[in-house]
């Protein structure tokens, strides 16, 4: 853990030590068109994937949100480049974004939850766009295509032999919807890092956000791994860090390449919160219910650096209550109390408070909390079950 606290100092130090030449954005070559039978075939597959993706129920169909993400991307990479991109937002709690060679960009809601401002979002979108502009996934495909047919056969057999619960029969469809996870090699990552920073340097956003989100992501994985009992961070367990290995060296390089005078630019924090804010409670619920306690706790406390909100306290209460160890309920009581103090009209927090109070033996207070919940949410989906608890608490009270 101590290592994390010294990260900013390390970064600052290495920025001086490894002062890199400045980076520039190359002239844009325009939209790439597939050449030869293989590539045309591949494009058709990506187009078919995009059709499946477009119709999928995991897509969040919010035109305002999608337009905002497109606008951030356009401000990052420039209007002529971003014209070739179609952005899709997937309701999926993990941190991830990817871009297919045909211009389909997938943004997972887990990324939107974790970004603290527009600049951090721009850094990730720009990095993915850089892989696209440099045609990295296309090059990977060319390299791997000799083994492709062998893998196809394996997939056919796996699909017919497997059972529903193993989920493997859905892998093909899953790839169509969630995108292929290319594991880029180190040189490709370096290229994308440099080009990503070059976009940001040229934009009106602070380029320092690129190393900031990287460091934040490394810290989250470290917390998650520690909570699970690993002595070392398990970077391969998270989709984005598995396909984009995080190294301190990369964060340091990005910090060094960022234009120093860009650090005073507006990072778009207020605009970002205005767009994402209304979805915050839902994004937090998706995160805490995915079952990664350490990562969720890190995400919540990291977001709280901008100030605790009722959403954040409530989510933290739910996180501890759902883990359900006796000491967790004691903490959950405190967190829900903070939530109802900031937003006394939030019924769900009174419900959570009541449940945690019950578990800690404070039945009279639990009664009061449930009563308040029922007053605020008389038609809640589990109001009748909560009502069932009340008589048992009243007996104790008398």
């Amino acid at each position, binding site marked *: 853990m101590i290592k994390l606290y010294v990260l900013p100092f390390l970064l600052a130090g290495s920025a001086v030590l490894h002062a890199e030449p400045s980076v520039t954005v190359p002239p844009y070559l325009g939209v790439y068109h597939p050449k030869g039978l293989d590539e045309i075939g591949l494009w058709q597959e990506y187009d078919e994937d995009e059709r499946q993706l477009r119709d999928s129920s995991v897509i969040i169909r919010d035109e305002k949100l999608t337009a905002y993400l497109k606008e951030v991307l356009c401000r990052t990479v420039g209007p002529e480049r971003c014209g070739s991109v179609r952005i899709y937002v997937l309701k999926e709690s993990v941190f991830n974004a990817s871009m297919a060679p045909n211009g389909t960009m997938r943004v997972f809601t887990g990324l939107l939850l974790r970004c603290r401002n527009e600049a951090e979002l721009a850094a990730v979108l720009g990095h993915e766009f850089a892989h696209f502009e440099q045609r990295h996934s296309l090059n990977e495909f060319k390299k791997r295509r000799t083994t492709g047919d062998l893998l196809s056969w394996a997939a056919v057999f796996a699909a017919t032999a497997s059972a529903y619960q193993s989920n493997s029969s859905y892998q093909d469809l899953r790839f169509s919807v969630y995108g292929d996870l290319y594991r880029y090699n180190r040189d490709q990552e370096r290229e994308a890092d440099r080009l990503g920073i070059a976009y940001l340097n040229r934009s009106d956003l602070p380029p320092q956000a690129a190393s900031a989100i990287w460091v934040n992501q490394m810290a989250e994985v470290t917390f998650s791994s520690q909570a699970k009992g690993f002595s070392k961070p398990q970077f391969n367990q998270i989709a984005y860090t598995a396909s984009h290995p995080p190294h301190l060296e990369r964060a340091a390089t990005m910090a060094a390449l960022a234009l120093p005078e860009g650090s005073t630019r507006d990072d778009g924090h207020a605009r970002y919160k205005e767009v994402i804010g209304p979805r915050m409670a839902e994004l937090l619920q998706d995160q805490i*219910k995915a079952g990664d306690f350490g990562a969720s706790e890190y995400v919540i406390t990291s977001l709280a650096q901008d100030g605790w909100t009722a959403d954040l306290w409530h989510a933290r209460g739910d996180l501890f209550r759902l883990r359900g160890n006796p000491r967790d309920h004691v903490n959950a009581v405190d967190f829900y109390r903070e939530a109802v103090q900031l937003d006394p009209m939030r019924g769900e927090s009174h419900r959570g408070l009541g449940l945690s109070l019950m578990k800690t033996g404070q039945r009279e207070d639990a009664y009061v909390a449930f009563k308040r919940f029922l007053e605020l949410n008389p038609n809640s989906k589990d109001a009748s079950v909560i009502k069932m*608890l009340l008589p048992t608490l009243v007996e104790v009270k008398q």
Partner: protein
Amino acid sequence: MKIFSKRAALLVSLVATGIFSAPLSANSLRDPDKIAQVAKSVMSVTPPRAWNSLSLRPGKNTEIWTLDGEQLNNVTFFGGIASGAPLFKERNKKREPLPKMRSDTLLVEIPELLEGTIRAYNNISIFSVINSTPAKFLGRDGIRFNYEFTDNDQLPRLGEAVGTIVDEKLYLISFEAPRFYYFERGIEDYRGLVSSASLK
């Protein structure tokens, strides 16, 4: 030539795996009106019609029954999940932990327990509990709830479950089916099973 022989070896091994693993995945028929113990537990049901019981068990005290295949109608029995145990067997205890049943779990928390399990086990974020009401189950106070979710096959599904807690152990029977056609078609058969359920 070398590539071809590698490929042939792979195909042979895959076919062989398929053949030899077949008897291991044998499923069985549960006859109508005959008492059947389920989920290696003291819970039993008397099915009003014939059901298929799958040998594949997602957890130690679980069992899946289906009419047309588990993707079209899936009844899962949870027979006495003890305190400290997850509902399904964890694929990896350390890396992918699942929510656990607790000795102080309340009836009102059962929907959250099932929700957390399905979300984490299937890696999905589209899941919501629609409603829950008090209900009698196994002759005791219990909870009935409905939910909807989209699994990795992108098919929207509906679910209904009834559960109760006896001696700090969870007993639950859930039914999941695609929202279109199959849920409506199978729900009464599932409810027939639930009303026949009892503890030994």
